């Protein structure tokens, strides 16, 4: 069966360019499905999926959409419709790769549509705004989207735009040729998702080595807000047998508005999936609030939380960490309790009482055991009875602590797979 590549394009203005791309892809032996996502007018080229259909699937009407001058209101309808359609095509086996090209507007909407597709499905966005500050990271989000910077605008067919489209066609065809579709858990060894970051590095490395010795494969995610949200999505895709959430920092950062904020849904997908979870409070001892220039600029985060009055760790201008306060630590304990109580699978929480990270162990810049001590009582009060909280008199980065986490997770995973 031939493989299919979906081309998303605004055919009211990009007909010639889309047609050129379509021919290139078809000349490599692929079928194409051309989807028109334009809101401006009639397509210059006959699409396989019309903008009428896309609008209808998004709950709108193309006539009203074309008449509207408010692109901010109508674009979400087209995104919704196109997302529904690509998921339908994927389910029918008619989508082995997806490609789009354009400037700011089309990049925003096309990457939103690509985000509806699971990890492993080739996604290529050719964008003249790929390098734009503030947007570039949002285009990608937590997804395995490939961004190709076109440098020139893909308007009109000249030697420069042709060269870009030809390379892009080669790229998506190469990827789709061998793609097996969405990644499924095929590994013979069970997969464990683990969050980690610099201030938990030794714990993470030690735990990873121990888990691998026990026959697990560990997939680490950087808990900087994006990596850990990506983990949540991959958990939903059913890839993992257990989670070692060393660094749930994204929850407190979300509460306080720090740089590592991981969204409102962090800490929830593992519970919903019913897989075993092990937690530590690492990262609840600090708030990522760089760059340092925000202090001088009177940034609201700094003034509202009075960060300048706190203990601060400044390794360089960007990675600035402020100590969290007692009431903040208690608040996060309640939020964590609420989130974990919804879990369908087994959960354990381990607290290293001699420091939650390399920054809050004895002698380190954010050492504040009095504040740390407020956390456990609130957490215990907030959690369901059957979720065990263990306080161990050691530092997070000590080998013994990593061993305790791994032993617990291993026995939970074994028990739940025996069931």
């Amino acid at each position, binding site marked *: 069966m031939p493989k299919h590549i979906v081309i998303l394009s605004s055919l009211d203005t990009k007909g010639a360019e889309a047609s050129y791309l379509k021919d290139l892809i078809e000349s*490599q032996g692929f079928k194409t499905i051309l989807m028109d996502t334009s809101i401006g007018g009639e397509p210059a080229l006959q699409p396989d999926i019309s903008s009428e259909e896309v609008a209808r699937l998004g709950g709108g009407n193309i006539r009203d959409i074309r008449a509207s001058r408010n692109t901010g209101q109508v674009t979400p309808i087209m995104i919704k419709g196109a997302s529904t359609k690509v998921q339908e095509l994927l389910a029918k086996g008619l989508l082995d790769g997806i490609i789009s090209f354009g400037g700011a507007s089309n990049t925003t909407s096309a990457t939103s549509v690509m985000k509806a597709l699971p990890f492993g499905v080739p996604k290529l966005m050719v964008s003249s*705004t790929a390098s734009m500050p503030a947007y570039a990271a949002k285009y990608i989000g937590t*997804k395995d989207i490939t961004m190709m910077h076109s440098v020139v605008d893909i308007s*009109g067919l000249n030697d420069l735009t042709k060269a870009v489209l030809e390379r892009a066609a080669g790229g998506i065809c190469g990827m789709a040729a061998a793609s097996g579709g969405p990644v499924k858990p095929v590994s013979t060894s069970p997969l464990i998702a683990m969050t980690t970051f610099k201030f938990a590095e030794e714990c993470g490395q030690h735990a990873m080595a121990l888990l691998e010795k026990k026959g697990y494969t560990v997939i680490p995610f950087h808990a900087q807000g994006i990596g850990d949200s990506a983990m949540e999505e991959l958990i939903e895709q059913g890839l993992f047998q257990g989670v070692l959430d060393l660094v749930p920092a994204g929850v407190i950062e979300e509460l306080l508005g720090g740089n590592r904020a991981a969204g409102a849904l962090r800490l929830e997908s593992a519970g919903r999936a019913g897989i075993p979870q092990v937690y530590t409070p690492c990262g609840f001892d600090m708030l990522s609030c760089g760059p340092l220039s925000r202090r001088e600029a009177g940034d609201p985060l700094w003034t509202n939380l009075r960060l300048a009055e706190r203990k601060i760790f400044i390794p360089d201008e960007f990675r600035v960490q402020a100590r969290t306060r007692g009431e903040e630590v208690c608040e996060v304990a309640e939020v964590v309790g609420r989130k974990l109580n919804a879990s369908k699978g087994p959960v354990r929480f381990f607290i290293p009482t001699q420091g939650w990270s390399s920054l809050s162990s004895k002698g380190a810049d954010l050492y504040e055991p009095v504040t740390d001590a407020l956390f456990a009582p609130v957490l215990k009060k907030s959690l369901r009875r059957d979720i065990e909280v263990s306080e161990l008199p050691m530092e997070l980065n000590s080998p013994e602590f990593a061993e305790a986490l791994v032993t617990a997770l291993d026995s939970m995973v074994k028990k739940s797979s025996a069931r």
Partner: protein
Amino acid sequence: MSYESKGVLILATMDTKGPEALYVRSKIEEQGLKPTLMDLSTRGRKSSVADIGPAEVAKAGGASLKLLASSSDRGRNSEAMVSGAVKIAHRLLRENRIHGIFGVGGYSGSLMTSEVMHSLPFGFPKILVSSAAAIPGLSTRFIQTSDILLFNSVVEIAGLSGLLKNVLDRAVLAMVGTLQGQVTEPSADRRKAIAMTMLSPCEGCARAVRAALEKSSYPVVGFHATGTGDRAMEAMITEGLFSGVIDLAPGGVGEHLYGFMRDAGPTRLEAAGRMGIPQIISTCGVNHITPRKSKYTREHDLRRRHDIDRLRTWLRMSPRELKEVAALIAEKLNLSRGPVSVVIPLRGWSSVDAPGNATYEPEEDRIFTAELRKTLKKEIQILEVDANMEDPGFAEALIKIALDMFKEVSSHA
């Protein structure tokens, strides 16, 4: 050149990404291409299974492994490695031994690899697999003005799990696909090619201008004036790729002055003047600012605004700013050695400030024009058109001027 004899240069810091780099090398070889693996490790490691070891790279960069090992300045170390890698990559390119470049890295590795990629020409295939691609601010630094294909690995590049292999396989196959196809030589017709900046709020005007010029057989190469696209245009003008410029959206000048998102650097609006090619300047977006939303001050919150979509909001510029920016633009245009025309619409400078919208402010726009008229040298004409930037009448006026200016120059040549 046949596919089989094509070479791919692989870059990685093998002290941290050794197994992953070796995996990529074997995958590329399996696909019938010739890989050359270069090790960019900065910590002065001696042994390496790479084809080009860190010692050779350091030496080419004017440093030695001993020096690197004894230095704790990682910034300096990676600079030396990058400069060595650039030299070696260019040598391989001249010898026709590499036809694509492939990088794999985390934060530091991606930064180093991307710098090497920036030194390679437009059109040369560049793929970077990075676990730091989605971190705010970084992807922009990785790509800059270069035509890099950036692949977000989602998972950390640490350990060859099935997930990471899936990512690396797809990226390698993208390179394979790119090298298999026939790619047009990216050499525009220099005698006639016209560079044009635009933004979506002047898309209609840009489309009409393009159509008219192409009808008169001028190929038009568009650049999105996002700060990086227009920066890339300036660089390509300096390379002598264009015979004229239609700068519909020079807002990057003001954005640079105030440090906002469309900042196009300190030399924006200067290359065409230096090269002496004809330029037509208009004003889309010049009367708006785009600070990062997370950096809005209280004063920004009070400004009139227009939301273009979920991500983009334009704030109206103040009269004082309009005057400052006009002076700066005039100063730059006064340096031009070739002909310049400025064309300004009187009923709003884009679809954002179209009549009826919150930031439509034609009276304030005149402050800009007055200052420009005061500061510009005599031979630069300002034409005001009683229309909105997106009205057909405006494009018509601009096209007429453009065709006249370009014809005059090509008949002189």
